[in-house]
């Protein structure tokens, strides 16, 4: 056995050829942070142009490229890979497995990402500019009327889908086959559960997205008319196919975040998660419902009234399992012994802001009201409350929570709390006023706006700059921790932390659980 206890290879080849889940997780996390900065830079350009009415800094065509790339890079480059990175680090450690089930595929599913995003970003320098039809790229604006760079965009989406599908298969295979003896499904930590369900969603819908972009490719280059009315095609078909992918996609983003919060809130409440079983069932219900609500993004498209009613009722139903989750988190805190370290602050921030996003989501589900909300800034505010406050806040919480375990060094708590407060305040100054301008009639995706929206837009831009700056503090804190943080040697790191990942030495050794751990059969779940 001795020869198995080797450390990582030296130099660049360690990272290029690694099959170690921790190395690959680290690369995913750094890559996604780089994309977060890039997508954030695009957001800063957008908010700078919207600081005042009138065109000041950029042209409308470039503005559209910015909104498009901001959305694509944040969704596919920042949020999704960051949670895959977290899954890589944590799932084997949480289920008592030595590594992921398919380590070489793991390496490949990471390494095809950087060139793909390089290709996507390079479209900015192509003739006609980058894709500019929004991250939802509705045809025919994204086909017949698109710049030539759309072909590169389609290729990027294909490769991203490939990467996601491989990553998901790996997670499914790992969770199903590599659990330590005694780690039954209903003993798995909730983060593992949410990722298992997410992985199934990904495997189901990424091929649908691939189908949509393939049809686009055929329309652009091979004379077909899937989405062109002039050739007998149907532009609305694109929206159905896109949102059949797109709605599960938003749960793909948020479910792992639910998992993270379900690990952290019990730790700092020093109390077991309330309603573990109902959390699992609620997650599964949300995943199922996510497949039958897609057309609520298309209430104004001219569906028959029966369709509108079906999608409205189905969408409203999602409030039930989502409500169960929020109630369970709050009840977990109830009569706990709470402390408020940075990860807990981010989880409380998540809880408040995600709930607000959930409420606006419920409002948007009401089809007649959606005729007024649809494609306005109200929608922009809504999905940033669930995406940023949901995914990004929980991701920040996760980094602060597990980083000490990973690198054996403690982050600076004051700096962490400062990061939280600046983020929280900056985020709300940015996105809360967008509810107001949306309700007052400001459409989304416009580079310039009427004068009555000026005050709130300026406020929004100032908030965005504050929120953007707070992420630099985050980056600094993480680097300072890794390089020179106060060493931690306690296995648990956090007093209230439960689960297998807290039973291994700190910092986590390069190889863990080469022999499976013993699971206490009496222990309900972590």
């Amino acid at each position: 056995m001795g020869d198995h206890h080797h450390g990582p290879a030296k130099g660049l080849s360690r990272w290029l050829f690694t099959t170690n889940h921790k190395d690959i997780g680290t690369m995913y996390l750094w890559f996604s942070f780089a994309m977060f900065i890039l997508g954030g830079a695009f957001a800063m350009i957008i908010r700078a142009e919207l600081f005042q009415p009138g065109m000041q800094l950029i042209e409308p065509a470039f503005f559209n490229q910015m909104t498009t790339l901001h959305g694509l890079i944040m969704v596919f480059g920042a949020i999704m890979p960051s949670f895959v990175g977290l899954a890589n680090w944590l799932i084997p450690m949480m289920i008592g497995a030595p590594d992921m089930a398919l380590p070489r595929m793991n390496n490949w599913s990471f390494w095809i990402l950087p060139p793909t995003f390089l290709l996507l970003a390079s479209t900015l320098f192509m003739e006609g500019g980058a894709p500019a039809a929004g991250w939802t790229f509705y045809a025919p604006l994204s086909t017949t009327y698109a710049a030539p760079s759309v072909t590169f965009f389609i290729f990027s989406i294909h490769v991203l889908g490939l990467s996601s599908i491989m990553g998901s298969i790996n997670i499914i295979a790992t969770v199903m086959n590599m659990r330590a003896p005694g780690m039954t499904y209903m003993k798995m930590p909730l983060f593992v559960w949410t990722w298992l369900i997410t992985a199934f969603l990904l495997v189901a819908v990424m091929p649908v997205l691939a189908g949509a972009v393939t049809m686009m490719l055929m329309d652009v280059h091979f004379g077909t008319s899937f989405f062109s009315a002039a050739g007998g095609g149907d532009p609305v078909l694109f929206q159905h196919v896109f949102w059949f992918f797109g709605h599960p996609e938003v749960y793909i983003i948020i479910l792992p975040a639910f998992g993270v919060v379900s690990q952290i809130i019990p730790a700092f409440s020093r109390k077991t998660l309330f309603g573990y079983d109902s959390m699992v069932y609620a997650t599964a219900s949300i995943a199922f419902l996510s497949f039958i609500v897609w057309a609520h993004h298309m209430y104004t498209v001219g569906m028959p009234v029966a369709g509108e009613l079906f999608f409205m009722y189905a969408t409203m139903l999602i409030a039930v399992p989502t409500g169960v989750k929020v109630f369970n988190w709050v009840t977990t805190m109830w009569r706990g012994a709470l402390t408020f370290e940075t990860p807990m602050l981010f989880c409380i921030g998540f809880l408040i802001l995600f709930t607000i996003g959930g409420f606006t989501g419920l409002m948007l589900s009401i089809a007649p009201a959606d005729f007024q909300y649809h494609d306005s800034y109200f929608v922009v505010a809504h999905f940033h409350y669930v995406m940023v406050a949901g995914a990004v806040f929980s991701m920040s919480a996760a980094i602060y929570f597990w980083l000490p375990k990973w690198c054996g060094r403690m982050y600076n708590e004051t700096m962490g709390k400062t990061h939280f407060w600046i983020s929280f305040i900056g985020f709300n100054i940015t996105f809360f006023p967008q509810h107001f301008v949306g309700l007052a009639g400001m459409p989304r995706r416009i580079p310039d706006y009427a004068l009555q929206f000026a005050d709130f837009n300026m406020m929004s831009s100032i908030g965005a700059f504050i929120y953007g700056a707070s992420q630099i503090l985050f980056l600094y804190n993480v680097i300072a921790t890794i390089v020179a943080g106060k060493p931690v040697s306690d296995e648990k790191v956090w007093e209230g932390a439960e689960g297998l990942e807290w039973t291994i030495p700190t910092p986590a050794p390069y190889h863990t659980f080469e022999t499976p751990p013993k699971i206490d059969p009496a222990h309900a779940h972590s």
Partner: protein
Amino acid sequence: MGFKAKRFWKLALGPVLMLMSALALAAGGDVSSVNMSPGVTEVGERIYDLHMIILIICTVIGVGVFGVMFYSIIYHRKSKGVIPATFHESTKVEIAWTVVPFFILIAMAVPATTTLLEIYDFDDAEMDILVTGYQWKWKYEYLNEEGDNVSFFSNLRTPQTEIYNAEDKGEHYLLEVDEPLVIPVGTKVRFLVTANDVIHSWWVPALAVKKDAIPGFINETWTRAETEGVFRGQCAELCGKDHGFMPIVVNVVSKEEYGQWMAAKQTEAAEIKQLMAQTFTMDEQMERGKGVYDRACLACHGAAGEGGLGKAIAGSPIATGDLGQHLDIGINGVPGTAMQAFGGQLNDVDMAAVITYQRNAFGNNMGDTVQPIDVYNHKKG
């Protein structure tokens, strides 16, 4: 208490700040800048009521949930020496908070359904207007039962100098058009909504109408304005470069005024028909042509014909080449590019004028004067 209160405010700072700013605005009186407006239709009022009911329900639930959470945050902290409880499930409680929200949802679904059915009731419309979205303008065609149909384009009127900050911005910056839609008050107007190129969406908040304009589809929607006035909206679906610059203005006028306006439009259309039989001088065509160019061509081809999204007109081989080919591109466009077919957008008088202008402005000097009859003949083939 002092210590606790301080911690509480520290935690509550963010939401409190937001709430205070919202209240300050609401107290400022002008709620229309922070909330949906009921507008001037019955449907709009019902949508507004629905919006407010759900907002209030959500707020009450939110206050409850956050209240419990903040109670925990204040009183159930380790620093107060609390020993954590050990409960972790309760079937009764969990059934309750699954079932109760379900009934709240049913309570919301009932008024939502009745409102939706009313919105989808297109019967008994008193007049029809065909609304067509173009990159980046709207075309309105009144499908009159008596007399000729009347149609016109409605373009952004805000000058580039205001957009690019060379001049002060007017009161209705970006929400003003050269020719608004005119509809009579108290009349059920049915809109047939479609598009010529990409997907647009016709949205006038005060009329409670938003409907996607999709090429190849004709969508229905309707409104009945109860108040006269000028109501403004914008395209709501990303449709390319100038998506933010294709506003909608609707004049709701009395039925008498509408009748007079419609009669005048029909007379104007008859006059255009007459003009089509006339012959114009070069100067007349250049003058009319400049007006048409600024309205229809400038956005893509530039103020000095230097090009932009479209090709340059100045020195262009088409504008300085064969007239037949020039007419063909103007009338039929270039399929697969942003160059639209203007044959249906400009009448023959305007088309003749703008072709003349393109051939004799920006340093082009072809010296030919195109007449409406030339356009007519070209269209006939």
